[in-house]
């Protein structure tokens, strides 16, 4: 599976990642500073079947107190995430593919469960959110699973926004503002959304064989980070006839944290609770917070995009 020839390093949510195979979800690492060592190294190799004495465990994930982790999707691959003695600041991800697994499946899991764990292990704050830059302003969309974060980002990209990250967003506090870090260059969408947005079939790339969710490359932001101006929590299945944007204030506007922070329990098991609280407090103070109340119908997607464009689009 290892590709020969030159492969670029990638920006993995702001971290430099080196991979033995081509990745399609992440922007290339900027050519400037190319002599820096990668912060994350991916390689194909053997992994343990399981980890002893995990402090957090599920059928798919094990986390140990020594900050190693194993992600096991048995039909795709095992990912063993650990550090090195030689380079304490380097995170190593060993990938042991399951025979027959496709590279794009490995990237799918890398982009989801593995990415979240790596970011928590590196004491960053990953949010379960999609983010676009619209009219020069970064707008993030949070909300529970299936609330329409990626779909709304896609609808806005179709209206001229640039994608900053899909589904997983790293935010940091620069001291002056909350920074949203550039993440992915693809949106992951389901057929109902792709059909509604008239995304041609040849642009729909598989994420798993026979799976409904597809990856779609879209115009993406190239800067490494962007001040996060607006944080919009999508409240789907609301008893409303039309989507409505409501201004919210303070930390409670970010509740429930378990929906906002990606793999929150894993982060807390790694001792990141205080850092999480600091980051969310900075977010609540540094970004203008909103709730977008919408129905559970895809039919209101365009109207949701209109509402966001009109209120937050900066005249775009």
């Amino acid at each position: 599976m290892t590709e020969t020839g030159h492969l670029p390093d990638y920006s993995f949510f702001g971290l430099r990642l080196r991979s033995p195979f081509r990745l399609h979800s992440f922007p290339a690492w900027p050519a400037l500073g190319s002599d820096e060592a990668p912060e994350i190294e991916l390689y194909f190799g053997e992994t343990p079947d399981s980890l002893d004495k995990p402090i957090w465990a599920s059928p798919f994930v094990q986390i140990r107190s020594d900050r190693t982790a194993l992600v096991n999707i048995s039909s795709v691959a095992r990912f063993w995430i650990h550090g090195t003695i030689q380079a304490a600041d380097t995170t190593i991800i060993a990938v042991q593919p399951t025979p027959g697994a496709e590279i794009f499946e490995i990237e799918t899991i890398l982009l989801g469960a593995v990415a979240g764990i790596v970011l928590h292990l590196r004491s960053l704050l990953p949010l379960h959110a999609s983010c676009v830059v619209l009219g020069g302003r970064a707008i993030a969309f949070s909300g529970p699973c299936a609330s329409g974060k990626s779909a709304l980002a896609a609808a806005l990209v179709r209206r001229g926004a640039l994608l900053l990250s899909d589904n997983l967003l790293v935010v940091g506090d620069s001291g002056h503002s909350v920074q949203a870090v550039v993440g992915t260059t693809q949106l992951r969408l389901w057929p109902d959304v792709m059909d509604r947005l008239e995304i041609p079939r040849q642009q729909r790339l598989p994420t798993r064989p026979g799976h409904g969710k597809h990856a779609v490359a879209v115009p993406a932001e190239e800067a490494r980070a962007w001040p996060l101006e607006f944080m919009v929590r999508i409240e789907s299945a609301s008893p409303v006839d039309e989507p409505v944007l409501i201004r919210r204030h303070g930390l409670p506007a970010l509740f429930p944290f378990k929906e906002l922070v990606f793999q929150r329990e894993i982060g807390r098991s790694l001792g990141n609770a205080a850092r999480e609280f600091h980051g969310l407090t900075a977010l609540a103070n540094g970004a203008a917070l909103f709730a977008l109340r919408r129905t559970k119908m895809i039919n209101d997607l365009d109207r949701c995009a209109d509402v966001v464009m009109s209120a937050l689009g900066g005249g775009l």
Partner: protein
Amino acid sequence: MILEGKNSAPTQGGQFGWLVSYPKSGNTWMRIMLQSLRNGGAPVDINESIDAHILSRQEFEEYFGVESSDLTVAEINAVRPELHRAIARASKDPLILRKVHDRCWLTASGERVFPPEVSRGAVYIVRDPRDVAVSFAHFFGLDLEEAVDSMEDSTRAFTSSSSRLTLQLPQPVGSWSKHVASWLDDAAMPLLLIRYEDMLADSALELEKVARFLGIPAEACAQAAAASGFSTLREQEDMRGFRERVPSAARFFRQGRSGEGKEKLPIHLLERIETVHGAVMNRFGYL
């Protein structure tokens, strides 16, 4: 007539109280009455979070640390029993109420999806399938023939579409008869049978049976039933809508009465239901 499952005594050990029904059989009404009861008989705002929700993708991801939408339906189904156990382990609540539309099913490896060891018991609400058919058609935006077809489909599953992402995990439902029989004959846990028609006749009495079965203090059953009357719920939906209404339905709380199937269904569909589901209908005095 009140019928009870063959094994109706509640256990002491498990935390889950499963509120089970085929769709459009009174499950949400019972959930609201139970929520009111647990709040001393106070009225329930139907647009606030109602206890006893269906298992969601959000919970799957919280407990398992992976994106459910990155997994296949088979991969999700294989770990459903463990998800229930994980929720039970993490909860300090001695009673976890959950709404269920799944039939009682096993994973591909033969494991029970609703593990008896974490189950206090199941309350199964059954409704005359002729009335279910009319309500089902309204709810899902089907014509009556399509609704009757769906109720015969042994492979029917909810929220398992590969064309869109759903809030809930995939739920194998099966045909109406298969659904009822799967729970009543093979739940492997204590089970209380409640008829929707008896809820209509005396909701406080049926609520009290459920409360006692689940170990919930039952003193405020009369107040809870009065505060959660069908007309009250309809009025709330008229005024402010209902977040659990699906896009295909004009409203969630519609008629809430029995006998509508005999009035609205054409003869050939009545005969089909009575033929296909007759054996199970007979068990509840519906024929």
